[in-house]
């Protein structure tokens, strides 16, 4: 790096020298030409002053301007004053001309240098303003902490041309950081214990730490806290290859960029909090819906069981065999109904669990369907279900128990509410992104008024006992399918009966299995 800088400086020096010499030569030739053509020597000085001005503009620093003004004086003396082509500094009035030319050229070069500096400063400012504007705009639209961090990493690294690490939260305990590294060995350097300690100090004390600061100076990077007056959000670490990080102005700008970053972080935090509240409310709503439905759905069969059993016990002698048989059958049916209810409730606890990411594994559609059919056949040996699944074998991410519960609920609905014994059609087809299950019966169909709210779990009270369970079962189906990012719908067939349809995405997130 040092060698590189030296080389660079040499190259600049050399090119400035070339420029100076060539401009000076041109000016001398021009002056000689003028003198030869017009024989008037008054313009010679102006030509040289012009040359000095030009040289000051195109070269860097004062040296070349002053150097060229000396050169001008000498060449005027040599070429254009008597004796020609020889030096004579004892001419009358010459010191004055010499001095005036020196002063003029010095003033010109000073001015141009100043202007150049100004231009440079304003260019830097513009670059700062532009990147600030850019980062602000990009940060405003960024969602998710990781995106925000990646954006900030890119900007800081681009702007300062250095490697950057950004920690969100406590550097040592949270280990939640991102690195943008310009050199391959920088990543490992950032992860060294000494660097992490400096970052940790920066986080806990909210002071800058590391190289070039007052604290933890043995670290190679410079760490700055991302903080407001009362909260520290994280730490930015900058790693420079050479010792450039000393300009206070650069630090100022870092402060401005950091405050933009803080704004973005706070906005993201708020957003997440709001999202969480939303999910909580949704869950709360589902839970209360469920409780309402359950208290209704459990009470009825329990009442029947208690009533039938009491009747049997108390009137054992007087009941005819036929009627006691009927009561016993009722008990079995109601108990089975309760079993199914409990299974649904278990399904709900599976999704409603506090950390409610359902556990998906790759499952074969045909295996899920066939296992469901086995269960259904055990409960309803007299009903027929015609199953069609695609020939192609694919695995879909899902919680198998929950999807089976959905299929069971929908098939049971079809069996219990279609009021006939025609076979029910269970069909699975693949579309480009989804697997579509449809369950079609030939029953009485749905009340068109109900279709819209059929999955809301509220239709129970309106329709009363005759359709008990329809509400809760379907609302559970809806919850399960939503948790799988699928859709569920119901419609009446044109030829009679109803069709329930649900989809599951072929590709899902959060897959645990292989």
């Amino acid at each position, binding site marked *: 790096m040092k060698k590189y800088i030296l080389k660079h400086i040499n190259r600049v020096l050399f090119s400035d020298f070339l420029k100076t010499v060539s401009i000076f030569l041109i000016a001398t030739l021009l002056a000689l030409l003028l003198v030869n053509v017009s024989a008037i020597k008054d313009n010679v000085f102006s030509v040289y002053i012009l040359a000095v001005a030009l040289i000051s503009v195109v070269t860097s620093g004062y040296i070349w301007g002053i150097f060229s003004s000396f050169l001008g004086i000498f060449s005027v003396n040599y070429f254009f004053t008597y004796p020609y082509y020889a030096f004579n500094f004892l001419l009358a009035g010459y010191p004055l001309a010499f001095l005036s030319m020196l002063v003029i050229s010095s003033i010109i070069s000073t001015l141009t240098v100043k202007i150049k500096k100004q231009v440079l400063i304003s260019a830097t400012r513009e670059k700062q303003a532009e990147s600030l504007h850019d980062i602000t705009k990009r940060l405003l639209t960024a969602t998710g902490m990781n995106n925000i961090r990646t954006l900030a990493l890119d900007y800081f690294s681009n702007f300062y041309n250095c490697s950057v690490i950004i920690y969100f939260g406590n550097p040592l305990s949270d280990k939640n950081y991102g690195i943008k590294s310009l050199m391959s060995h920088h990543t490992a350097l950032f992860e060294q214990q000494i660097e992490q300690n400096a970052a940790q100090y920066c986080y806990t004390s909210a002071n800058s730490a590391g190289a070039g600061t007052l604290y933890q100076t043995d670290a190679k990077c410079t760490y700055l806290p991302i903080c407001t007056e009362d909260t520290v959000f994280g730490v930015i670490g900058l790693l420079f290859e050479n010792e450039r990080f000393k300009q206070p102005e650069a630090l100022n700008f870092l402060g401005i960029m950091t405050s933009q970053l803080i704004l973005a972080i706070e906005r993201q935090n708020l957003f997440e909090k709001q999202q969480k509240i939303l999910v909580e409310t949704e869950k709360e709503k589902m839970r209360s819906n469920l409780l309402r439905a359950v208290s209704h759905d459990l009470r009825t069969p329990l009442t029947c069981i208690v009533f039938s059993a009491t009747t049997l016990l108390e009137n054992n002698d007087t009941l005819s065999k036929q009627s006691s048989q009927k009561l016993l059958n009722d008990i079995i049916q109601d108990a089975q109904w309760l079993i199914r209810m409990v299974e649904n409730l*278990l399904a709900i606890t599976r999704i409603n669990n506090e950390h409610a990411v359902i556990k998906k594994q790759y499952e074969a559609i045909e295996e*899920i369907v066939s296992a469901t059919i086995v269960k259904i056949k055990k409960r309803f040996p007299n009903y027929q279900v015609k199953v*069609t699944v695609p*020939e192609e074998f694919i695995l879909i991410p899902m919680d198998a128990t929950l999807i089976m519960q959905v299929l069971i609920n929908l098939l049971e609905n079809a069996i219990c509410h279609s009021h006939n014994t025609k076979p029910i059609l269970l069909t699975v087809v693949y579309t480009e992104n989804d697997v579509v299950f449809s369950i079609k019966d030939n029953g009485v169909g749905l009340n068109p008024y109900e279709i819209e709210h059929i999955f809301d779990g509220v239709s129970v009270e309106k329709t009363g006992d005759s359709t008990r369970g329809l509400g809760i079962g379907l609302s559970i189906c809806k919850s399960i399918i939503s948790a799988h990012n699928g859709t569920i719908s119901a419609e009446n067939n044109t030829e009679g009966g109803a069709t329930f349809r649900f989809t599951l995405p072929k590709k899902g997130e959060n897959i645990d299995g292989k």
Partner: protein
Amino acid sequence: MANKFKVLIVEDEISISNFIATTLKTNGYTTLLCSNGKEALSMIASHCPDVILLDLGLPDIDGLEILKQLRKWSSIPVIIVSARVNEEEKVEALDANADDYITKPFGTSELLARIRTAMRHASNSNIQNDKFSVKGLSIDFGKRLVIIDGKEVHLTQIEFKIVSLLAKSQGRVLTYDQIIAELWGPYAVKDNQILRVNMANIRRKIEKNPAEPQYIFTEVGVGYRMVDE
């Protein structure tokens, strides 16, 4: 009958064990009852039952622990009875060499069928003269032939191994890991994807409708089972 089969019921809920005992007695079995793990272990040692019905949720020792201890010295058929529903536990119990698993609530006919299967499996009577047959499916292990409704079906080496493995444990659920270990050795990667693809191919060859199988059933999340009787 002098040679009644002896069933040990390990269950801490009196109502359940009463109901099971009544059912079994009316179907010609002798029953032994006990309600905790320590008692169970000593009763198994002293009475040598033919079948054990084991509840996993016992007050003193976990049912799974009893199973593991028992398997160190005995291969008495054990049927796990449990109200817990997650598949992991089923798999764990089956991998610890339980013979079968039945989830509460269950019906009497189901219970009796499972007991029959477990006992038949213990006596290995489902395979005679190196041949196996159930419904329209018959397997000749010596000739490596699988015949469905009189027609020969061509299976690959692996497919035949899977089918015959399931047939030899007819009625029992074999977990994915058990099948993988049998087929590819105990150190094979426990990735059931390959097994499932093989299973899908087998279904397409031996079942009329792969979604309504007649011979090989899926226990979702657990494994596969060859149809009984």
